[in-house]
């Protein structure tokens, strides 16, 4: 009986439609940030086609915003590309965390999982991993494609609306991303045991200290990357 329910659960959770359903709570974040990006793209003198191409090919919120900033400032191409690389380098660590759980699928499907990895889908996937210790390919595809198509649609729509909404910031929409990270962090911590929770809270304290100090010396995106590497190492060294 127990085995039967377990099998049933695996089947229902590794479905494309369950992936779509698990993506829905993040859509508000994607859509509001995407709309904001479209608006900012227009004010940065990008065309709607360019906004569309950026969301299709780059598909990374923070990098797309920084792209606009650098483009408007007239930065050289090399700086734009190098900055984009550094801003998105954190995805390397995210992919490395998720990838070991999907090695049973083909190379082509793994390229698919990797290509559509973002901060948010990573957050949803590791929350699922924390709960069930298992990731299914169909579930990943449902999650990834829903997020990807919503992002492209929201960015493009934002570009179209851009002429009418001059300032998306005053609506508080830019905070959606931060609130989403907060929720994903809390959801990740909700499923660890009591003794582990104390360990994690101390590590978050280390992240805060590390971020504060590093912010004096390097740009924020680099501080995120370095802090994560340092504190994850502290985590391994101090675990019982």
């Amino acid at each position: 009986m127990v085995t039967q329910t377990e099998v049933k659960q695996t089947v229902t959770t590794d479905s494309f439609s369950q992936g779509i359903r698990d993506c829905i709570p993040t859509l508000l974040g994607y859509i509001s940030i995407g709309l904001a990006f479209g608006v900012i793209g227009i004010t940065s003198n990008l065309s709607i086609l360019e906004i569309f191409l950026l969301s299709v090919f780059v598909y990374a919120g923070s990098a797309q915003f920084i792209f606009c900033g650098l483009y408007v400032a007239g930065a050289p191409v090399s700086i734009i590309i190098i900055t984009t690389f550094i801003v998105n380098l954190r995805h390397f660590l995210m992919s490395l965390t998720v990838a070991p759980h999907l090695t049973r699928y083909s190379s082509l499907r793994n390229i698919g999982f990797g290509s559509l990895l973002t901060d948010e889908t990573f957050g949803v996937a590791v929350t699922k991993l924390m709960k069930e210790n298992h990731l299914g390919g169909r579930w990943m595809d449902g999650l990834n494609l829903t997020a990807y198509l919503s992002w492209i649609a929201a960015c493009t729509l934002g570009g179209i609306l851009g002429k009418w909404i001059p300032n998306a910031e005053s609506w508080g929409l830019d905070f959606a991303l931060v609130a989403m990270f907060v929720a994903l962090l809390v959801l990740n911590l909700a499923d660890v045991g009591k003794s582990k929770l104390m360990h994690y809270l101390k590590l978050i304290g280390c992240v805060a200290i590390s971020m504060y100090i590093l912010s004096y010396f390097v740009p924020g995106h680099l501080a995120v990357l370095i802090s994560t590497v340092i504190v994850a190492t502290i985590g391994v060294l101090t675990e019982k």
Partner: protein
Amino acid sequence: MTTTLGMFLIILGCAIVTWLPRVIPFMLVRSVQLPDVVLRWLTYIPVCILSALVIQSLLNTEGNFVTFEWLNLIAFIPSVLVAIWTKSLSQTVIAGVLTMAVLRYFF
């Protein structure tokens, strides 16, 4: 509704440098068995990276000293409380955005 070849190439360049770090780990772990210590290290990445991203948004690095991004810090408090209370992604986002909209209206 147009673009130039130059712009298209910049976007393509950005796409390649974004795509490689996302995909390489997926190829890497197929051919290399990661040692146990690396796998344990990776279990700390989610909490570290998510907290680092949150803290990044709370810091203001524009002046001589690193200070707080006060509006974000204030909106952060109800977001955490709603997240702990409801364990819901969408309700947290709504609470955060509404708080920020109210704050921006007054400040």
